[in-house]
């Protein structure tokens, strides 16, 4: 839809697990083409917020607007909207009973009513773009962590989504192979994909994204351009958090 509003608008989102309130009224909008990074300490609610955006977690209250439809509303066809929201998980979650190609073609064939051959062509082009064209018939269990995550990205891209959510995509990887996944994400950002990334990779946040959101104990404490947030944070809590990540490098 070509309306001028933000692609995703999260409004007063509240989520708790039992008595533990994880999100305490989150407001966030993501414009089309924007790359937003969510940072914050473990347990601050970053991942939960991301999972609420495509309703893998069901919020207690609040709204998630996507294309003028509220995903939280029980009547909304969430499955149909999810086709446009790609998600990449920390643990890759590749389908263990399929090879790389079938991982990528399953959803397009089932949901986009694509022919097998066409879906295969699309999948191969995406697998090429993440540098895995030699592995299309490989079993997913035979891949390294970095390769798995790149397959997961290709799998999400095969649905041609309007927005990609990344839930700590490099946290389960060896430091040496984090780069190969970040490079793919960097190129995606350059191509204009709308992205929301939960990460601990501060260099990625600083160099690639348009806006950094800092979360602390269930609220968005501060947000702004990387330059603002990293060089001149307003809040003491932000400064504390960033010093732990940035000082050793500088």
């Amino acid at each position: 839809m070509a309306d001028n509003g933000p692609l995703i608008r999260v409004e007063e989102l509240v989520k708790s697990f039992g008595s533990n309130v994880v999100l305490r009224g989150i407001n966030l909008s993501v414009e089309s083409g924007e790359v937003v990074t969510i940072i914050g300490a473990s347990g601050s609610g970053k991942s939960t917020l991301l999972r609420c955006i495509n309703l893998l977690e069901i919020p207690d209250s609040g709204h998630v607007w996507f294309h003028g439809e509220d995903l939280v509303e029980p009547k909304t066809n969430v499955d149909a909207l999810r086709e446009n929201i790609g998600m990449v998980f920390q643990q890759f979650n590749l389908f263990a009973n399929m090879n790389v190609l079938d991982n990528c073609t399953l959803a397009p064939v089932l949901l986009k009513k694509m022919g097998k051959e066409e879906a295969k062509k699309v999948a191969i082009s995406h697998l090429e773009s993440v540098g895995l064209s030699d592995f299309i018939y490989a079993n997913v269990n035979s891949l390294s962590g970095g390769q798995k995550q790149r397959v997961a990205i290709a799998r999400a891209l095969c649905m041609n989504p309007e927005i990609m959510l990344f839930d700590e995509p490099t946290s389960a990887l060896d430091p040496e192979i984090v780069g190969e996944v970040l490079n793919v994400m960097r190129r995606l950002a350059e191509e204009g994909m709308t992205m929301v990334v939960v990460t601990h990779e501060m260099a990625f946040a600083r160099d690639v994204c348009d806006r950094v959101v800092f979360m602390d104990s269930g609220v968005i404490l501060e947000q702004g351009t990387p330059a603002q947030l990293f060089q001149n944070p307003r809040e003491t809590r932000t400064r504390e958090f960033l010093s732990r990540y940035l000082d050793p490098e500088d």
Partner: protein
Amino acid sequence: MAEQHGDQGTRRGKVASFLLDDHRYVFLGTSVLALIGVWMHGKTPSAFSVLGKVPILDTLLFGICCAWLAVSAVALITKLARWNSYQTTWAKRPQVVHASRIGSYVAWAAAILLFIDRAILGFCALVSEATAASSNPQTFLGGAAYMVSQSLPMYAQGITTTISLAVFGTIIAFFFAVVLVFLRIQEPDRSDNDFVRFLKKVGSGFAFLYSTIIRGTPMMVQGLIIYSGGFMIFRNMGYSVSETRQIWSYFVAGLVIVTVNSTAYIMEALRGGIEAVDPGQAEAARSLGLSQWMAMMHVVFPQGVRNAIPALSNEMIMNIKDSSVLSVVGVFDLMFATTTVAGIYYRQMELYVVAALIYLIITFIATRLLNMLSKKLGAQEVSELPANPTE
């Protein structure tokens, strides 16, 4: 696969090494065989015995065994007497060690020949004698051989029934169990309206109730209820007793009983397998836009079945054994054949042991076959492994 081959290789290597190399257990190991040879020589030769007709050879073999035992005894005494300096005695001289290895083969041959002559040919003689006998021999083995040989058709029918009940029962039950397990594990999705939610609850509740009742009652009781219940239903539908016996035959009833019983257990096995699948798999499928049902069919269920393969083959083995309780209904399985034959001859013990042996052989073979099958199914992933680079 490669690992297993390697494993087998080293195991075979160990056996070969024990048989071929010089080692410290040559005396002891061969002495056990030689003792068996001596024991066999003490038995009276049977009608089939070859050595019994050639007494010189018989005595020679016996002598070889005795000689081996004597040499071993001397070596043992030497070892006990010179415990600390045994390595320097005659028994450890390389020529002696090598000679003892070669001598051990001679002793083996003697002992094995004696064993074949007395035990194996003796058993054959006993069986052939018993089968040709005009009345039931009083000995245990003879009686068993006589009664089994007189009732071979019954045993054939019983074994066939037992195996086909287990095989067909398990396969049919698997399909019912798949349906039931889908009913059992379904959860209301957010988009479901109240009616769908209600249906799902009813389905899940039904599957739970079914599993609880079937797994909580003995198969024998279920068998009696289903058999007589089925009989009653057909009678009430207006069929005569003989017609009912034709439609609701013992075999059909037995198959229904095994299926009904097995469905509950297989359902639980499948449920365990499905619940063991990482929840991230379903999440990833849902995040792509797949519905709950699609995620189950294409992603979770195939992995769940693979997880359940060991439990499923176990269920097949259980069915081979458990179908024995169906003999109370009148299903002509192996147990029914056994009790029938036992009734004819008024001899129980021998035939029960024979039945146990036959069950053991069937389950042993079935276990092997199922292991091979499940390895094949489980190894499907591995065989796909070599990446198939397209140009």
